[in-house]
């Protein structure tokens, strides 16, 4: 390890259904509040999925919405870190291409073009990550690796997604992954690990982190929110649409992240779970975590954020890493919004109803992509966090 750089987080930016800042995201979670709601423009379109996590800070009429949402998160992270883009690498996911209606009609939005536009103000490396729902976490992990190995001093890492379009709402409904309207309170659409879960709520969002070497952060006297100490990837190699029942692929990426961090599972204080609220996904994740923690699984607080902000796909993993970094910095694990009655098979030490102050210093944050890509990062409290 001696020839490797330590990597710390010195800036964060988040746009989510809970607001346009990391502070609003964190405060909303601590208040056990959800930003998922019925979206009027979707109601007017007549489709069967009308709930989602919308980012209010950028108009849905804006055909540059994908670019705007991403740039705001990036700018916030850079401003907090007091770094310039021109001195950073850029490891980012802009999610999937999509189709929407603009003022001039049909608009095809290219995720690749959006990435290139965003990347233009950064130094290299510029890598666009494409690992479905695991993209945001993998972006953080890949940036960590590049900095750790001395290939770059600092990177902006994260992801952004604009998913609240009929194209994707109908598409994911066809895959039986999203919660269909059935007269329930829209704010309860996404219920991770709950007996009444019926899928996730799609969401727009963006999350950005500035990662840099500890030496650089200390030289600049920057605030260090958390340190990234481990990263692991794996593939399920099982099915395109669902995880293996025993969560073997998920467990493998978590074990790889722990090995990379040179930690034992008992040294993890809390988990930020993927927690999509899909039937098979939550079961597999809970099984993986129970196997990882063995006889200690009842004592490791687990929290998921998709009940509060929905599933922002390419942005999901980095938004969750931002929450994990806040947990490291403050020691507090936020509750899993909308979890009331834990389903059989989903048993874990869930944080329900209110935040739990456990002085958590080391947090595992995980993401599992549709198609079977799994990513995990381990974060640790920073020097002045």
């Amino acid at each position, binding site marked *: 390890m001696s020839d490797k750089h330590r990597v710390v987080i010195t800036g964060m930016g988040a746009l989510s259904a809970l607001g346009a800042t990391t502070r609003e995201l964190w405060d909303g979670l601590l208040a056990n509040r959800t930003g998922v709601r019925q979206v009027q423009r979707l109601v007017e*379109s007549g*489709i069967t999925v009308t709930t989602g996590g919308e980012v209010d800070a950028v108009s849905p009429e804006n055909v540059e919405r994908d670019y705007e949402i991403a740039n705001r998160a990036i700018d916030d992270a850079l401003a907090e870190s007091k770094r310039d883009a021109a001195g950073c690498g850029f490891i980012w996911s802009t999610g999937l291409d*999509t*189709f929407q209606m603009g003022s001039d009609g049909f608009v095809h939005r290219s995720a690749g073009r959006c990435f290139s536009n965003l990347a233009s103000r950064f130094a290299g490396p510029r890598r666009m990550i494409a690992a479905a729902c695991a993209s945001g976490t993998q972006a953080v992990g890949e940036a960590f690796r590049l900095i750790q190995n001395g290939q770059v001093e600092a990177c902006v890492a994260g992801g952004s997604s604009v998913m609240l379009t009929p194209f994707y709402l109908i598409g994911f409904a066809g895959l039986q992954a999203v919660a269909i309207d059935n007269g329930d309170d829209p704010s309860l659409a996404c219920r991770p690990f709950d007996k009444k879960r019926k899928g996730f709520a799609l969401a727009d969002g963006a999350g950005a982190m500035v990662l840099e070497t500890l030496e650089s952060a200390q030289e600049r006297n920057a605030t260090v929110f958390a340190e990234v100490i481990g990263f692991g990837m794996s*593939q399920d190699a099982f*099915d*395109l649409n669902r995880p293996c029942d025993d969560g073997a692929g998920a467990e493998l990426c978590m074990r790889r992240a722990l090995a990379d961090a040179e930690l034992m599972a008992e040294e993890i204080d809390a988990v930020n779970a993927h927690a999509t609220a899909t039937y098979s996904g939550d079961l597999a994740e809970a099984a993986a975590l129970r196997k990882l923690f063995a006889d200690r699984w009842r004592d490791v607080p687990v929290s998921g954020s998709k009940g509060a902000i929905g599933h922002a796909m390419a942005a999901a993993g980095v938004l969750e890493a931002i929450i994990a970094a806040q947990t490291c910095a403050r020691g507090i694990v936020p509750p899993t919004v909308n979890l009331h009655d834990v389903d059989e098979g989903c048993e874990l030490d869930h944080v329900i109803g209110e935040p739990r102050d456990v002085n958590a210093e080391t947090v595992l944050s995980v993401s599992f992509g*549709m198609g079977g890509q799994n990513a995990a990062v381990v974060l640790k409290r920073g020097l002045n966090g």
Partner: protein
Amino acid sequence: MVYLMAAARQDDLAKVRGEKPELWRQVRRYNKPVQLALAAADEVMRFASDPATAAVISLAPCQPGSADLYSWGHVVTSGMASGTLGNLRMNPTQTLHAVDNLAMSAFAIAHRNHAYCLGLGGAAGQAWCGIEAVHERLSAGLEEESLLMAGDQDAAEDGSPGLGVALLFSTRAKPFQPLDRIVRLVSVSRSPAIVDVVPHAANGLAALLSAIAEHRDRVMSYVVPPAHTDGFSTITVALEIS
């Protein structure tokens, strides 16, 4: 040390369907870029010592989707404008055509591969990030072999031509197939340059393979044509061929 062990190009799906019916059964429901990438990968993995443990680095297409998906996109967006979407359903297979990591997932399932994976998105020039990632991981001893695969099409809307490319790298010096020469990947270097690009996940790698096939000297310094870069860099791939 990192060596290029095998490479394949594939642009003829009718041939795949006719000559490899089992592979075709696996890939037939995917869209063209994914089919072509997987068919090329199938060719090179014959040379892998253990396909289950190779790192998998996969490039998403710059022109993703399919004619079916585009057609469906028009239906949805026009229905949205007129408020007539109702209970419109989407064929799940077409949803898959929009997914950026599909080739990587399908490859992993076919080869029982649980190893490290990196999906790179459909922005211009990501192929060279893929080669850089191969070099980083194999040089660090994290894996012994790594697959880099890409599939793309000239346009998604109309079923126009496509190309799949796969390269298999190894830490062991084995003759590069089909040239029967040892090809060592020395480095990938960049210098700033603003240039116009033609985004395509596979064309740049195919051009590199053509250049390797024609090269006669030991040292090869391949300057990536500007159209195949990310638009921000002059990229040079250094190789040794013996």
